[in-house]
């Protein structure tokens, strides 16, 4: 018996699923399945050495990993560091991006080239960026310390990447943490710059002109006309940058290895996995970390919804 010819919409349905299937397969196998495995591992007592002898029917479940991680002061200190790092670096990146976008808003000869140059930190391979900055900040032969001791009158070179804290006048500055935050601002402000520039280009010019004719200075125009229009894109950027900085591993691991008070959650997951070879606690740490990210996403989604309602 010959198969009935498919209707147009049935064929569309079949084609659509077939076309998405290969992508779905890779994503399921290398992202969704691993995430389910994290949830599983977080409730198992497993170490790396156990892996060759790990069989599904012999699993013993436990909440010890989560309890260990939850009760560990080191975890909470890493969580605090992570939140500080993510909040400060996303706020910094957005403010710097805003300043540069405003400065480059009106055309002048050479603006195209400067716009391209400003994007350099964002496209630079992270390993190249950290290697160059480690050299710049080197206490022995780095440019920053050479300038500081020769010209700025520093008593001694500063080990930017290993010093936990340092008294500057009445303040205690967390040197290494500030340095990795500054690096993150440097590396990610170009993205904020691009987003804000794109938004500035569609700001209608006539209201601004009218305000200026009425005698409003540029500062007032910025606070009352531009900023309200940029608020949406800046809020979106704040959330995205926070989510990305919160999970950042590369930059901090490559710059400090987590030393000098810069141990963030991502570095903790790595050291539980590789140094302590404890899959259970590494997964538990990762799971709690993901939970914290979900809270941020949920709060943002709720705010968007409330605004629309």
């Amino acid at each position: 018996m010959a198969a009935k010819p498919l209707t147009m919409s049935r064929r569309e349905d079949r084609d659509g699923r077939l076309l998405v299937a290969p992508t779905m397969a890779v994503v399921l196998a290398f992202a969704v399945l691993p995430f389910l495995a994290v949830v599983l591992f977080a409730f198992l007592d497993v170490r790396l050495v156990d892996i060759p002898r790990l069989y599904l029917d012999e699993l013993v479940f436990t909440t010890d990993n989560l309890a260990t991680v939850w009760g560990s002061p080191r975890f909470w200190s890493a969580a605090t560091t992570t939140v500080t790092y993510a909040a400060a670096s996303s706020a910094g990146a957005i403010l710097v991006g805003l300043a540069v976008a405003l400065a480059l808003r009106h055309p002048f000869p050479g603006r195209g080239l400067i716009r391209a140059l400003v994007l350099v930190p964002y496209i630079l391979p992270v390993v190249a960026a950290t290697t160059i900055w480690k050299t710049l900040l080197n206490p022995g032969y780095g440019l920053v310390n050479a300038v500081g001791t020769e010209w700025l009158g520093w008593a001694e070179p500063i080990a930017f990447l290993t010093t936990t804290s340092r008294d500057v006048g009445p303040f205690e500055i967390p040197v290494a943490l500030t340095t990795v935050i500054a690096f993150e601002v440097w590396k990610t402000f170009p993205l904020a710059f691009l987003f804000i520039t794109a938004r500035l280009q569609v700001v209608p010019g006539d209201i601004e002109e009218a305000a200026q004719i009425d005698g409003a200075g540029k500062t007032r125009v910025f606070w009352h006309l531009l900023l309200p229009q940029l608020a949406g894109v800046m809020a979106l950027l704040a959330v995205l940058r926070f989510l990305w900085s919160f999970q950042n591993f590369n930059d901090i691991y490559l710059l400090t290895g987590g030393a000098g008070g810069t141990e963030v959650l991502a570095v903790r997951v790595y050291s539980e996995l590789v140094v302590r070879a404890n899959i259970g606690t590494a997964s538990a740490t990762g799971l709690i970390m993901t939970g914290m990210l979900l809270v941020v996403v949920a709060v943002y989604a709720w705010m968007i919804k409330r605004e629309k309602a």
Partner: protein
Amino acid sequence: MRSTEDRILGVLRWAVITVAVVVTAGPLLYGFLLSLRPFQSVLTEPLDLLPSPGEITFDAYPTAMAEYGLGGNMWNSLQVALATAALAIVLSVLGAYAAVRLRFFGRDVVNVVFLGVYLLPGIVLAVPLFVLLSRIGLTGSLAGLVFVYVAQTVPVALYMLRTYLVAVPSSVEEAAMIDGCGRLAVIRRVVLPMALPGVAATALYVFMIAWNEYLFALLFLVADRDRWTVSLGIAQLTEFSVPTTVLMAGSIAITVPVVAGFFLAQRLLVTGLTSGAEKG
């Protein structure tokens, strides 16, 4: 007449521009200048940024490539990045076409899954992937790395391609289908050529991500020096007392393809998409 406010803002504007250019382009230039100087002179005269004419040397580059093995590492990176870009593009062209043109059961679920993957921390996925790959013996293999990179980049690639494919007028496709083209033939002969600049830009973007990647390379390949990618290679070299001039040469060498690709993509992106494809 310009007000005081305008004058202050004008000065501030140029101050911001100057600082921005020095801080963003400066470090790369510093790395490049350092890579041209002998290591001894860097140690003794850290403030001499411009190499004196007599001391310019390109020795650091062959030393980095041959003696420290970064040349071989670059070859590994090139293979991984090309394979990732090719696979991710094939998958995401099919997926993006379906997402733009076809109504099918489960489309919303697919979107949610992709968004989730995009937001999941890489370090969290790294734990089970490390375990899984060592269980099936794929650690130390570049193929395993390629699959992980594809899974990480395909959601973004698909999202990027969607915006380009929307711009392809569906009437051209319908005409091709009436002429007897099947779905795959329509994608290959009509959609792909018309969206080519977008496809190329997306491919470059994926290539850059794979070329720059560090975490998964570190986890999967660290034990096997012959398979190191170049990012891993340079990062490992910083752990030993390798002259900084060699490290700078390596850093500049891995940056060149990325910067070249970026400027290429910028030009591709502005090329007109579909103008003139449809007769009015």
